[in-house]
């Protein structure tokens, strides 16, 4: 059992243990979809939503099906299947009830399936022995942390459009450098507390 209180877990998963800047998960969509703040926030929101719920569902499956049967070794494949199915479901749901949001998110919605931060959150949940409420909080916090990271990067990239970037660094090169600098800034939070 993990003793971290919920509030500390929530703050910690956003800042000190930001899933992107501390664990470097979810880099691919972070690099590709951080050109504009509006899409970054849309994608961040969708990731947060999916991460919160899949972590909770995976908690239930892990603790009530896999653990009693001693089948921890298939947790990877089960987690991925749950995430894929959940994203499908969200896609249908959003298309039906909020076509505007559906069109705004466009291709990003199905892309969430392959965002490794989401699988990462489920695996941390197992590794750090969270209970159900902690898992839910961690899923929400990690999602918000990822959304914050991509929104920060999108803001910087929008600004970068007006600056004179050396030719060799244009595009991904500069983005990698900036991501490194932001990650260093985020490790500054680590002194406050650290999640285990």
């Amino acid at each position, binding site marked *: 059992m993990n003793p971290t209180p919920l509030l500390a877990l929530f703050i910690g998963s956003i800042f000190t243990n930001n899933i992107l800047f501390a664990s470097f998960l979810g880099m691919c969509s972070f690099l590709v979809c951080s050109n504009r703040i509006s899409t970054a926030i849309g994608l961040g929101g969708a990731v947060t939503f999916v991460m919160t719920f899949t972590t909770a569902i995976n908690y239930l499956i892990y603790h009530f099906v*896999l653990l009693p049967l001693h*089948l921890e070794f298939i947790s990877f494949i089960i987690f991925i299947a*749950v995430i894929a199915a959940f994203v499908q479901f969200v896609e*249908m749901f959003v298309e039906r009830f909020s076509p505007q949001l559906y*069109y705004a998110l466009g291709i990003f919605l199905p892309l969430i399936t392959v965002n490794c931060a989401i699988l990462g959150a489920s695996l941390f949940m197992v590794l750090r022995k969270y209970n159900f409420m902690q898992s839910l909080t961690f899923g929400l916090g990690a999602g918000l942390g990822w959304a914050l990271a991509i929104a920060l990067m999108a803001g910087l990239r929008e600004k970068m459009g007006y600056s004179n970037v050396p030719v060799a660094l244009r595009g991904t090169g500069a983005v990698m450098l900036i991501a490194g600098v932001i990650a260093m800034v985020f490790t500054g939070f680590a002194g406050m507390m650290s999640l285990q």
Partner: protein
Amino acid sequence: MIAAILALAVTTGIFLILAVALLIAERYLVNYGSCLVRINEGSVEFEQDGGGTLLAALYEHKVFIPSACGGKGSCGYCKVIVMQGGGPLLPTETPYINRSEVKAGVRLACQVKIKQPMELKLSEDLLNVREFKSRVSLIRELTHDIREVNLELIEPEEIKQRPGQYIQILAPGPDGPVFRAYSISSPAYETRKVQLVVRLVPGGIASTYIHNLRQGDEVIFTGPFGEFRLSEDSGKAVICVGGGAGMAPISNIIHTIYRRWPDRPCWLFFGCRTTNDVFYLDKFKKLAEKHPNFKVVYGLSDPLEEDEKWDGDTGFIHLSVDKRLPIQQSRQAFLCGPPPMIEAVTEVLKDKGLRDEDIFYDKF
């Protein structure tokens, strides 16, 4: 061993549960019920279960819309006017639809999904499009890479086409069947057959398929499509400029003209690289003997070989147009060929006083 079987069972079980949950969700979430689709204020209407694309629904109900990419949203041909029930314009459509088309309600039928009753507006021409079953009756090699393919119609037996129109051939592709457009080269009065002039494009799906056809093979196509209308004014001269397989619509136009108006003035300018690319020249020379108002000019863009004989023009075809075409009042031009040729010829024709609306072109 037991653990492996258990793992397999649990994995299968959870996958099954997820699949069933998704199926149930799909049944309730993606089911839009039956929607009424009305075309041209009810001249055609049908009920369609919602959820699918408009293009597929129209095809299912025998309304054939041109489409070359198979519904991937990459060709932009399947434009229809949606008056009601189309929902917001999608990001996948915006590259193909300009501002004035957005105002008119133009959408790509392959991207719009049917979710509610819809009102469409289609040109009457499109409602006359049929699906044809045909058989290859004759194949002729025109040059090293251009073939003339004659299709004898089986079902329906007759086609009503205007010169300049095209058909869409169904060709088997690596990712399923595709439709590709080819202009009809047989004259409009030959209603029992369709003739095509097809250049083999290296790696091209449909042109490879057509070049591999043998006599007797069955071919499915839809048509006729295309907005071009030959002017009915017999005093209006017609200028045809083409290159390569751009011969197809031009051959149709010229033969149709001389069946109806034997004395109508008409110019044919045809650009080739070398003498090996020349075809149909004898046929047109014979036609020109019968109809003195028909002028044929073939031009070669590459220099002649040492021992070659050539009595036509040399140099790019737009130079021939510039040199030979007299200034005259009432004219209509039809251009068909590669884009640089079309651009060069359009400029020359405008210098000669043709108006934009009298220049019709087909770039490929």
